[in-house]
């Protein structure tokens, strides 16, 4: 039997496409042919590995919710007696305001993590080639130029024609978030995070950023925990935001 035939046989076996007689024949072949047995074992291991990997993101989502419930966040600092605490708080605020003022940095009320510091969006590529006046090109150009008000209706029109384009949908969410239409943005990110596309982690990342924008650090942390550690592109950003929360 050729390698090609073996490949197809193993494929059909692992996909559950063989009847009982054919399955028994594959198993009998594995018993008498060590090379075939090894090839079968390796492919079975890879199939299990990929299946587990595919299910891990959705599981992480479930576990993040349970983790927040069964491992409640602790108070971060011990309570000091009131007079001293007030004095320290006032001194700390004075120092922070002074530093920010001297440094020319805008004050952000959301806490230590500043939305603007983390809102760096990947460029959008809707078309590889196309005339500049075509809708995808215009939507892409407006988004990439940071013209979010202009990008919103263009992306909405584009999505009417391409409803399955999750990258465009994510870009629409980002544009809405940037234009302070937060609830509409959150609805989009929630749907992306709950979906099975490769952008689910980005849905959670932007849900965390939307929470940072609202000043809700605990919620932001919960969304960050849903992002798989295997997301190499987001990993450094997640760690940076965690440290700032």
């Amino acid at each position, binding site marked *: 039997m050729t390698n090609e035939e073996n490949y197809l046989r193993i494929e059909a076996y692992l996909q559950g496409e063989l009847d009982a007689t054919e399955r028994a024949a594959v198993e009998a072949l594995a018993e008498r042919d060590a090379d075939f047995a090894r090839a079968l074992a390796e492919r079975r291991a890879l199939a299990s590995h990929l299946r587990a990997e595919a299910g891990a993101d959705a599981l992480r989502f479930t576990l993040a919710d349970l*983790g927040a419930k069964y*491992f409640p966040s602790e108070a971060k600092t011990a309570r000091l007696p009131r007079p001293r605490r007030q004095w320290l708080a006032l001194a700390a605020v004075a120092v922070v305001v002074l530093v920010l003022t001297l440094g020319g940095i805008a004050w952000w009320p959301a806490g230590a993590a500043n939305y603007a510091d983390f809102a760096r969006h990947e460029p959008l590529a809707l078309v590889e080639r196309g005339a500049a006046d075509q809708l995808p090109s215009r939507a892409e150009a407006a988004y990439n130029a940071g013209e979010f008000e202009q990008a919103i209706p263009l992306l909405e029109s584009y999505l009417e024609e391409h409803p399955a384009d999750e990258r465009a949908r994510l870009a629409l969410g980002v544009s809405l978030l940037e234009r302070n239409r937060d609830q509409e943005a959150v609805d989009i990110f929630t749907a992306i995070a709950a979906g099975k596309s490769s952008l689910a982690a980005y849905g959670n990342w932007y849900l965390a950023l939307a929470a940072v924008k609202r000043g809700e650090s605990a919620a932001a942390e919960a969304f960050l925990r849903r992002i798989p550690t295997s997301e190499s592109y987001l990993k450094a950003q997640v760690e940076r935001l965690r440290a700032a929360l």
Partner: protein
Amino acid sequence: MPLPHPDHRYLTALRENDSQTLEALYRLASPGVQQWVLANGGTMADARDLFQEALISLHRSAHQPDFCLQCPIGALIFTICRNQWISQLRRKKREAEVRKIEAERYIPESATVSAYERWEEDQLEKQRLDATLAQLSETCQQLLRLLARGISPAEAAERLGMSNANTVYRRKNACLTRWRELLEAK
């Protein structure tokens, strides 16, 4: 094959992402891990992350057709979390805390030790497969992952810019041949 421990149902719940049974698992096993991590220099966030990552790693074991849990799952989770926390403390050079933990002389039952050893083997196998997959071309990795998610060959063809499902089959064959070469070269 010996009969599985009744807690094997939690592994099935991990594989199937059954949130109700997983909540029961958190109720059962999280207090012990939480208490121990807090008593050994960790925070609640450390305990939560250790527990979650232990379950994610067990989710992988749950996908192995021959993985049969023979010990209480709480004991296995505790052992995984304990050893992971010791590794983290060592990486952070917090040796005094490591010595304190080691002085406890915690000895799990033999069924738990066997389950833990099997879990370690699964983790090594995961590293080996991750490493070989990472050496494949970006298209091969995407193709194999899309198909593993249950995406149809026709849809995979569309997403990856391939002409049709037949091309997907041919590319998958080529990717798996290359993957096997990489595996054998290791």
